[in-house]
């Protein structure tokens, strides 16, 4: 995604938000649902991700209940909510891991996520960090990053590919960023829990996706690292869209910088939306989530 496009997207932000209000207040937008294989998402309307009335149930239990949500291009959105509210399930739906019973999910204004397979979704630019860190245990830290590197994902290309100097530099840069430079040649499976978390974030950065989904990225990090992570995410904001799920209110506070929107999920749908301060003072949110 080029900076120009970014700007175009940002320029349309306001208009898009207005439209979103309409969408969430009832009518379905008819522009979604076309499969364009390998196509680029169309961000011209300023919306990066749009979920509408998504319902997921497991044996009758509704993990997501008519959830609607829109993330703008370049936006950093924090999502909080009690354990079991459906945050992870929502990410599962976006990345194609779980198919919803009802609803639509689209990327940009043109790509119907529900019709794509996981790898296609990743290819068009949605990257994810799992709640439980998942890395390639038997490969080295370096190789983990190398595989995540943005490049042609096809078989033939992979057989003949060679790492270029710039790519090596990029890997080194990320290694430095995630504090794993000394561990570069170690087998990833031997890392500690927190190191794996970092490695997974590093892999996500290598992938350079348009939309990053981060499920509890700072769980198990020290306060200082949490701060650094916040800085890192803030530096990505604008160029990328981010959805961050966290229970660490301090971290959320740092990310939202007092004005950004926070969404509270509860029992599979949106309970409240607004600035952190807004939601923190919401009685219901305090009751089900924050506690007294």
């Amino acid at each position, binding site marked *: 995604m080029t900076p120009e496009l970014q700007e175009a997207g940002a320029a349309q932000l306001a208009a898009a938000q207005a439209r979103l209000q309409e969408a969430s207040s009832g009518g379905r937008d008819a522009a979604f649902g076309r499969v364009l294989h390998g196509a680029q998402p169309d961000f011209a309307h300023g919306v990066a991700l749009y979920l509408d009335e998504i319902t997921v149930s497991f044996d009758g239990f509704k993990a997501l209940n008519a959830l609607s949500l829109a993330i703008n291009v370049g936006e950093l959105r924090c999502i909080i909510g009690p354990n079991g509210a459906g945050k992870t399930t929502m990410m599962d739906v976006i*990345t194609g*891991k779980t198919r919803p019973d009802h609803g639509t999910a689209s990327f940009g204004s043109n790509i119907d996520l529900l019709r794509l*397979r*996981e*790898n*296609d*979704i*990743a*290819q068009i630019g949605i*990257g*994810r960090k799992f709640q439980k860190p*998942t*890395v*390639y*245990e*038997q*490969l*080295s830290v*370096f*190789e983990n990053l*190398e*595989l*995540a590197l943005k490049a042609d*994902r*096809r*078989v033939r290309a*992979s*057989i*003949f*590919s*060679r*790492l270029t100097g710039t790519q*090596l*530099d990029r*890997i*080194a*840069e990320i*290694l*430095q*960023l995630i504090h794993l*430079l000394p561990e*570069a*040649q170690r087998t990833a499976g031997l890392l500690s829990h927190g190191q794996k978390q970092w490695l997974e974030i590093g*892999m996500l950065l290598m*992938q350079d996706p348009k939309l990053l989904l981060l499920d509890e990225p700072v769980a198990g990090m020290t306060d200082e690292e949490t701060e650094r992570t916040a800085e890192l995410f803030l530096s990505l904001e604008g160029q990328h869209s981010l959805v961050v799920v966290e229970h660490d209110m301090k971290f959320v506070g740092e990310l939202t910088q007092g004005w950004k929107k926070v969404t509270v999920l509860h029992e599979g749908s949106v309970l409240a939306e607004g600035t952190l301060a807004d939601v923190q003072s919401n009685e219901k949110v305090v009751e089900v989530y924050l506690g007294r």
Partner: protein
Amino acid sequence: MSEMTTLKLPPPKRGLLLGKAGWTGLMLALIVVTVLAPLLNLVVPEGSVFHLSDYAVALIGKIMCYAICALAMDLIWGYTGILSLGHGLFFALGGYAMGMYLMRQIGHDGNYKSDLPDFMVFLDWKALPWAWAWSDSFIFQMICVVAVPGVLALIFGFFAFRSRIKGVYFSIITQAMTFAAMLLFFRNETGFGGNNGFTDFKRILGIPIAQPSTRMVLFVLTGLVLIGFWVMARYLVNSKFGRVLQAIRDAETRVMFTGYDPLAYKLAIWTLSAMMCGVAGALYVPQVGIINPGEMSAASSIEIAVWAAVGGRATLIGPIVGAFFVNGAKSAFTQIFPEFWLYFLGALFIAVTLFLPNGLVGLVAQLRERASTSAKLKQSRAAEQGADPATEIAQEARA
């Protein structure tokens, strides 16, 4: 972050196909196969201690075919984590394709002096069934050697991988496929000689097959194919392709969420692996002189996996070593202890799993690592002596 870009990372030690030792080994292997073995078999007189008997040539030739299978198995199992119990089938299909050609080469020299292979005569068949259409064409059958296993693997793999069949479920359906094929081939009506399969071959490309020089040519060819496949496999696993395979083995979902399509990768390696087995089968049949559905039994496929595991999975040389070791041991044991050899073989498998979790090849690495670990330990202990009061306390406590 700007200062980070100045930081240089040593590029990982690959890219070059082989190290120095690797090239020497490769050359040595080539010389042994193409020069030494023919010399010892054909030129050195029979009485000499250096003479390589026909039996030994046939045995080594056969084991080299097995080694190709083990190598193929390693690509799919060792590197991609997919245990196939269908490689016996691919091997057999390659073998049958070659066998059909060899049957046709018998011509009128069979028992019944018929145009048709003997087994069709006792089935009262009057014409060749459709499956035998171009079986007298060497070229066509050689295409079949790779195409039949390849296409079968492609179709089977496509559906199985698309349905996300994994782990044992995949192993079991490959076994079901193989087992079904075995039953099918066991039937005489199927038209491939039933339980007897094909045997009593006379000629290949018009040249008598039993002739020592023919055998030697087949032997050398097998050796070259094995070495060639090894080099190819080596290249593949060292490429990014190979690392994607290993990533699929470790965390397939992650691979998917990174944007790779595991289906394409699995299908590619699976089909390649099947075709390698087909070639192995085709080389096996003229050297061993018989192909029958026994090769499709569950045990045969499991044995291929056993060779790879004994030698060491995910190390390309391991499966080859394993194939030679297990089959060599089997040949020796069935001769030396005809009544007890199964005890030895069984004990061997148990011992390898218990004591050599990384196979025979892993043993070397294991020993090397142990040496370096204990050296390191000694070092760090020495460094801590005195510096670390806790250690001292502990040592005192022990004394």
